[in-house]
């Protein structure tokens, strides 16, 4: 005779933690999945140094603002331009 409870505990509400063989096989499957389907994002260090082009930060509007003055500067120092 079943004991009277509010819910019938036919199944456990929570699964027991994975253990032993089950854990090992899950890990194997995960690794296999990565290898076969290339479903994992692989990150590798670039072989070339990362160059950040600082000039790209110079905005066109700045260049336009500086241009008239720079033109004078060049003309006044024409020996080095």
């Amino acid at each position, binding site marked *: 005779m079943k004991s009277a409870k509010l819910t019938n505990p036919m199944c456990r509400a929570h699964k027991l933690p994975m253990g032993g063989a089950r854990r090992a096989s899950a890990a194997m499957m995960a690794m296999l999945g990565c290898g076969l389907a290339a479903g994992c994002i692989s990150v590798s260090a670039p072989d070339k140094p990362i160059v950040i082009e600082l000039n790209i930060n110079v905005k066109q509007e700045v*260049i336009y603002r500086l241009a008239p003055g*720079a033109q004078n500067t060049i003309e006044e120092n024409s*020996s080095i331009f």
Partner: protein
Amino acid sequence: MKTGFTRAALAISAAVLAMTGIAAPALAQRDPAYEAARQSGKVGEKPDGYLGIVSGGDAALQKLVNDINIKRRALYAQKAQEANATLEAYALTAGCLAIARTAPGEKYQTPDGKWMTRTSTAPIRDPRCP
């Protein structure tokens, strides 16, 4: 006492000479060696506002280019500060203009680093150039 005075006078005249010596070429035209190097295409204008050696180049040419670039950098730094801009922005602007004013036959560098000979047509410059 007299020697002291003479020494001071000499120092002052030397200083005056040095100052005028520096100031005078600033308004003058290019040094003949620099002019020759430009015309022969040994040196050219780079988009970053500095002079570059197109190919090879001996020690004398390297020194000439370095000297000019040091002077340019000092000038850019001063003018950039006055204009409340960065040195890079000012140098880049000057580079735009320096490439634009190259004479046909002179060399300039494109934004992707290739050396080109200036023709009568417009040079290939950074798209931000005015």
